[in-house]
Structure formats: structure tokens, C-alpha cells
């Protein structure tokens, strides 16, 4: 028989202790224990890949000889400090690259996520891709959607296929966005690695305006975000909280890459999406969501594993921005939309 006084007394004690702990925890930095969710077994799968072929050329081409003392673009950086090319209009000759890549008989894969209301963007995406994306090559479009019946059956050129992949719809748009890495990784492991050699992961709410060709093919390809190519690295919207696995401290960072476009050899996409998904999981376990969802994780990954080729903002433009003189040709840009309405 516990008397009321004792009960009240101990409850008050408990409450006081809890309040003290709460106060202390609020003032100090919070530290999380690293904690990893169990890996799905596909992450331990070993994939067999076909040999990567080097570019071989059969030139019967007549073109102006490049001049060693005449740079093509003097207004922009065209090679990164780790000697990866940055693809701008004027830096490359599309004929040479075409003559190098056509004989390799490649199939290029494109992934795009059209979940929920985003299915409305698929038609324009596909139509513009048919006009501009990798003309003359075999292309597989992988549209990931939760409602396959709403994907329009577009008329495609010969050698190009449309495949819908059913995915689960998640609760919030951020979750959908971040789960892309896992979904792409799983898809590569199960399907794409057999069907394509190069894979591009693009946002579906965008449209092609100008040719996108084999100049974009490379081991690992990232695109420079249009909003941040003119600002110093301190202003990049990297994840700045050290509790996140996507943390990049001030003073570090090469470029700010956009999450809407990345690509490369299918085996590198597998590794890349796997490691991004692991860091996303780590954050999830710690209850943190990175500032720009998987784009922050993408940037973190590309800081330590630098891309072998960069695409200028021509390849990932935002039409709401005014076009500066450095951008001569916009190839791929966002569709104007009401964000609130579409993300609901």
C-alpha cells in the first residue's frame, strides 16, 4: 500500500529529473550513434558486366583541324582540376563522337520516375526525347510509376522501347524522391544491367529542347546545377549539419551537381546508387533528412568519387532563370509547374 505522499513524491522526483535532462539535452549538441539497417540481399549481388570498349574511330571525316593555340571556349572552364571534361556547346564535334560511338552498338537506358501526379509530364518528356535524345541509338525508357495505365503509349522511333516499372507510392514527395536511389539500384541489379550499357537517371518533369548526344556518355556523369554555377562554394546548398551522412563542411566542394541528371556506365550507376542509398538509410536511422534530399547525398558522393565527365548547365536548365551568355544552347530544362499542386 503506497501512500499518496510517496507516490506524489516519486512522481515529482521523476518529473524533476526528466526536466533537468531535457534542459541539458537542449543546450548541448546532439550526437547520434551510427546505426545501419540490415541490407537487402541485392546489395551483395555480384553482377556480370560486359567489357567496356574504348572508343575506336573510323574516320572518313573532313573537318577543320583543331588548333592547339586556339581554345574553343575562353569564357568557361572546360576541364576540371581532375581532368574531367565539362561539356559545353562548342567544345566538342558531334560528328567525331558519333562516328566513335555508333559502331559500338550501344543501348542507352533512361530512368524517369512518374509517381502520383507526375504522370502528366511523361508525354512531353517522351515526345521531346524522341526528337532530341540520342538520335540514332537504341534507347530503353524505363518509366517508374505507381499507375502504369496512365502512361501514354507514345509512338517511338525504331530501336527505342518504353518499359513501365511498377513502384510503390510513398507518403511524401521527399520520400518518393529519396527512394529513387534504392529503386534504380534494384532495377539495375535485376534488369538494366543486361539490357543497356549506359544509363541516365533523369527527372521526368523536364523537356528536351536541343540535341543530347553521345558527348554525354562517360564512366560517371554528373550535371552542374543551373542555380549554382556562378556562385562560390560557400553558397552551395550542401547539407551543412554534421549529423547527416551527406555533410559537407564549408571550404570543401568542387561544384554543386543537380539531382535531376546523372548517368554513366551501368556498373557505376549500380555502385553509386547503392552508396547513396546507404547514406540515405543512415540518415533515416538518425532521424535526419538532408537539405535537398537525395541531391545532397549525390553531392556528397561526387565529392569523394569525382565524376569522370561533367555536363554544363545546358543539360539541366531551369527555364525560370534568365539565360546568361555562357549558356549558348539549352538542351534539357524544367517544365513550368505549380510545385504545391503537383507534390500533393
Amino acid at each position, binding site marked *: 500500500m503506497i501512500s499518496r505522499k510517496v507516490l506524489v*513524491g516519486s512522481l515529482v522526483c521523476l518529473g524533476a529529473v526528466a526536466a533537468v535532462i531535457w534542459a*541539458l539535452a537542449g543546450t548541448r549538441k546532439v550526437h547520434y550513434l551510427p546505426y545501419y539497417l540490415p541490407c537487402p540481399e541485392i546489395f551483395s549481388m555480384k553482377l556480370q558486366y560486359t567489357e567496356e570498349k574504348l572508343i575506336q574511330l573510323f574516320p572518313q571525316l573532313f573537318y577543320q583541324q583543331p588548333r592547339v593555340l586556339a581554345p574553343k571556349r575562353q569564357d568557361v572552364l572546360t576541364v576540371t582540376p*581532375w*581532368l574531367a571534361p565539362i561539356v559545353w556547346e562548342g567544345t566538342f564535334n558531334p560528328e567525331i563522337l558519333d562516328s566513335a560511338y555508333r559502331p559500338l552498338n550501344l543501348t542507352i537506358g533512361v530512368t524517369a520516375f512518374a509517381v502520383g501526379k507526375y504522370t502528366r509530364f511523361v508525354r512531353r518528356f517522351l515526345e521531346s526525347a524522341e526528337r532530341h535524345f540520342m538520335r540514332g541509338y537504341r534507347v530503353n525508357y524505363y518509366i517508374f510509376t505507381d499507375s502504369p495505365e496512365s502512361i501514354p503509349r507514345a509512338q517511338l522511333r525504331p530501336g527505342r522501347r518504353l518499359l513501365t516499372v511498377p513502384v510503390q507510392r510513398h507518403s511524401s514527395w521527399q520520400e518518393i524522391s529519396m527512394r529513387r536511389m534504392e529503386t534504380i539500384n534494384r532495377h539495375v541489379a535485376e534488369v538494366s544491367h543486361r539490357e543497356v550499357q549506359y544509363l541516365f537517371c533523369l527527372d521526368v518533369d523536364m523537356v528536351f529542347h536541343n540535341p543530347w548526344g553521345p558527348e554525354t556518355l562517360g564512366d560517371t556523369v554528373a550535371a552542374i546545377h543551373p542555380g549554382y554555377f556562378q556562385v562560390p562554394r560557400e553558397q552551395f546548398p550542401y547539407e551543412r549539419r554534421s549529423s*547527416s551522412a551527406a555533410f559537407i563542411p564549408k571550404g570543401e566542394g568542387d561544384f554543386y551537381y543537380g539531382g535531376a541528371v546523372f548517368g554513366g556506365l551501368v556498373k557505376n550507376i549500380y555502385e553509386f546508387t547503392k552508396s547513396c542509398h546507404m547514406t540515405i538509410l543512415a540518415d533515416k536511422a538518425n532521424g535526419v533528412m538532408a537539405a535537398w534530399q537525395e541531391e545532397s547525398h549525390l553531392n556528397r558522393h561526387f*565529392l569523394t568519387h569525382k565524376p569522370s565527365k561533367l555536363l554544363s548547365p545546358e543539360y539541366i536548365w531551369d527555364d525560370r532563370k534568365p539565360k546568361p551568355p*555562357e549558356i549558348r544552347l539549352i538542351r534539357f530544362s524544367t517544365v513550368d509547374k505549380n510545385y504545391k499542386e503537383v507534390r500533393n
Partner: protein
Amino acid sequence: MGITKVHGLAILLTAGITGAIWYHHPFSPARDREHAASPAEGSVLCRKTDLDETSLLLPWRQDVLVLTPWLAPIVWEGTFNRDILNAQYLQKNLVTGVVTFAVEKSLRYVQFIEGFMRSANKYFLAGHHVNFYLFTDSPKKISHLQMAPENHLFVIPVQNDRRWQDIPTSRMDIISSYIHSQFQYEVDYLYSVDVDVQLLADIGVEIIDALVATISSWQITSQIENNDHETHPESQAAIPEGHGDFHYSASFYGGSVSEVYKLTRACSEGLMEDRENGIEAWWHHERHLNKYLLHHRPTRLLSPEYYWDTELSPSSIQVKRMCPVRKDSSRQAPETKNVKPLLFTAPLN
């Protein structure tokens, strides 16, 4: 009332809960966790880079071409950060090899070995593991050469009973057969360098790529736009007018062992066929190298800094990394057509 058992129980309970909470939320400063999401080897690249802000609107070299039309980088001083490249190279645990020929009968190349080895040990991929393969017909004449601790020297004897013109042509043959039998198991990347050179500045991991060639110096110094490609049409190395991106020097080229194997095989086959047809393309192997590289474009080009063989110093050349050493002209074969003179001085250290 006094402290009863129930009081004690209540205090114990409170203490227990407090202890449990403390255990799960350790907020003492000693448990500070550094960001460690990336794997261990990735931390090499987390270092702050020393270079200035990489601005996309500010190319470092505005006076020269830094990217070929097929998007292969051209390596000039100021276009790369060696720290980043070193970190990437170390991540992959690579071994690089250098092949060079020092054959007595022709032009007394043996005298150059010491200078070459000394400067190469100092400047060629300094700090990384390099295998030097020295083909020579007089292995006994090579005095004890001091090698850097991370480098190895392999002296491989070859026969010297050939005409002087044959040495460069059989070079390709020798390299390809040794790649097949030996080098492919020992190195990942292989570079062929003339022995009569001195390295004067760092040549580092910026040269490591699948197929790498050096642009000839006279692409900058010559007034004429055209290359002097072989205009002997029957020769296998004849390249039609109007074609040809750059002229590449045969004094310094290389790449991954598989690519160098394909290159040397193709060149030696072409040279063999030429010889059977009675054509000796003068400047032999360089012509065939250029023809091969026209059909199989290099994945990375080295600017003429990497093999500078004239006395001129144009402003575009900020660093001279490798220069040929003065040759004794009396030893040259009588019927040479020397459009590109080989006599010059290189500043000796």
C-alpha cells in the same frame, strides 16, 4: 514520517530510469562523432583542396586548347590539381611501368642512361611505385644506378646486330611481345620514353589514362598549319591531306597495358609490311604511331610541355618537363633527312 521501504523503492526507480536515459543519450563531449559516412579510402579526398576556388566562369588557361573535339583533356600546366589526381591514383592501387631503349651500336645511347635514370627517379611519378624496364645490349656497362626506394629497375638484354634504322622499328615489336609475356602481369599502365632525355619538372599522375600521347612541339612553333605527314602514298603510314588532328611525338606515349599492346602491335605490323614492300618511311615508328592514333584517338593528350625539343620558349609553354639532351651529331647516320633538328641544349640541373 520516516524513510520507509517504499521511499527507497521510489528513489531506486527514479535512479534507474535516469540511468537508462543517460545511457541512451550520451551527451558528454567525449563522445563527439565525426562525420564518417564515406568509406575509409574516401577520406583521402575529404581534405580541403589547396587550390583556389574552382569557378566555372574562369578557365585557368585561356590561351590554349584544353579539350579536344572528342572531349579528351589536353594536359597543360595550370589545368589540373595534382593532389586530387594523386588521391584518385592511390585509391586504385596502380603500378606504372616505363620502357626505354639504350642500345650501344646506334648513337651511343648508353651514355644517356645515368642522366635519364637520375632525373626520372626524381621527377617521374615521384612518390609512386614505378617499374623501369631498360632494354639494352650492354647490360654490363650499366653502372650501379641509384633508384628511389619505391621504384624498381629491370635491365633486359637485347641483340644489337641491326642497322640503326631498325632499332626504333623493332622497338615496337619488342614492347608488344614483352607486354604479352611479362609486363601485363606486373604493371597497369605502361609508358615508352626515349632514353636520351632529361626530366626537368614533375611528370605525375596526370599522365595516367587509357591511351595517352604527347603533342609535338612544332605544332606550336611551326608557322605552317599542315602537319608533315608522310606523303609517300604507298607507305602504310600515308595519311591523306586534310586529315589529322595533331601530330604526336613518338618519344613519349603510353597508356593502359592493353591499349599500348594494341598500339605497338599495329605499328610493328605496319612497319614490317612497309619493310617488305621496300619502303622505309623515314621517321619510322613516329609515322605509324600517328596513323594509329588517327584511327584510335587518345583518351588524353599531353601538351608539348611533356616533350619539348626546341630552344624556343613560347608563352604557352610555362613548364618544360622533359627535354632531349644534346646529341653528338657525328654519330648520326649519314643519310638522315633532318627537317626537325635534334641539336639543342636543355638546361641541366
